């Protein structure tokens, strides 16, 4: 089963929380920006791809038990979010790729 570490290497993701556990296994992928929608549909162990960058991303990731968050399209996390993911041990990555391009690569990693 693919891990966060596999994903980071294959997608050349930039890691914004090096202390987070990257050996966790991935169960699938969820994509969304409306936080209430993500809250209701993301699932434990998923890779969550979003373009949201505020602190509430950390709460949603933690409450849904997502394995990691990938912020797409070159979006950068704000300082509040960086502080919170470090405090709550959430794996947070960024990528310059589009959501679509990331999704394809995530699919490849999950099915490798």
């Amino acid at each position, binding site marked *: 089963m693919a891990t966060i570490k596999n994903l980071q290497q294959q997608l050349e993701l930039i890691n914004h929380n090096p202390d987070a556990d990257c050996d966790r296994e991935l169960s699938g992928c969820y994509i969304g920006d409306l936080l209430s929608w993500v*809250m209701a549909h993301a699932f*434990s162990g998923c890779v969550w791809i979003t373009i*949201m960058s*505020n602190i*509430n991303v*950390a709460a*949603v990731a933690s*409450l849904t038990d997502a394995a990691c968050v990938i912020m797409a399209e070159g979006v950068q996390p704000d300082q509040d979010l960086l502080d919170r993911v470090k405090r709550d041990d959430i794996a947070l990555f960024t990528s310059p790729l589009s959501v679509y391009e990331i999704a394809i690569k995530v699919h490849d990693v999950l099915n490798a």
Partner: protein
Amino acid sequence: MDKIHLQYNVDGEDFTLAGEASSDVRRVLRKLGFDGDTIRRAAICMYEGEINMVIHASGGVIDVYIDPDSIEIIMADTGPGIADIEKAWQEGYTTASQTVRDLGFGAGMGLPNMKRYSDFIDIETELGKGTTVKMIIKTRS
């Protein structure tokens, strides 16, 4: 297990704290050994309520009562009240500001999510006085 009572004061001014109470309840439920589905439903219900308190009501007080077969969440605020409760139950209906929407909230999914993931929900609201939401999440395993 005796019934456990947790209480949280939600700060209505600080968006950065939204979700803290929900996260804490999730931690407690995990420690107590509740199953993943129950924890998830309780977390969603409470988070939506917490966000509503911050967006609409300048905060409030949340009481959570935990016993082995159910989690009861009572959220009380002294905000403006809900003007049209029938509409508030509809998916996509929102009175949130653009600023709030830019943060990823205000999709009109709050009450619908709370209804979907709880086993019981009751809302008492009075314009100018406030709103109290009571939800019960039952364990299914």
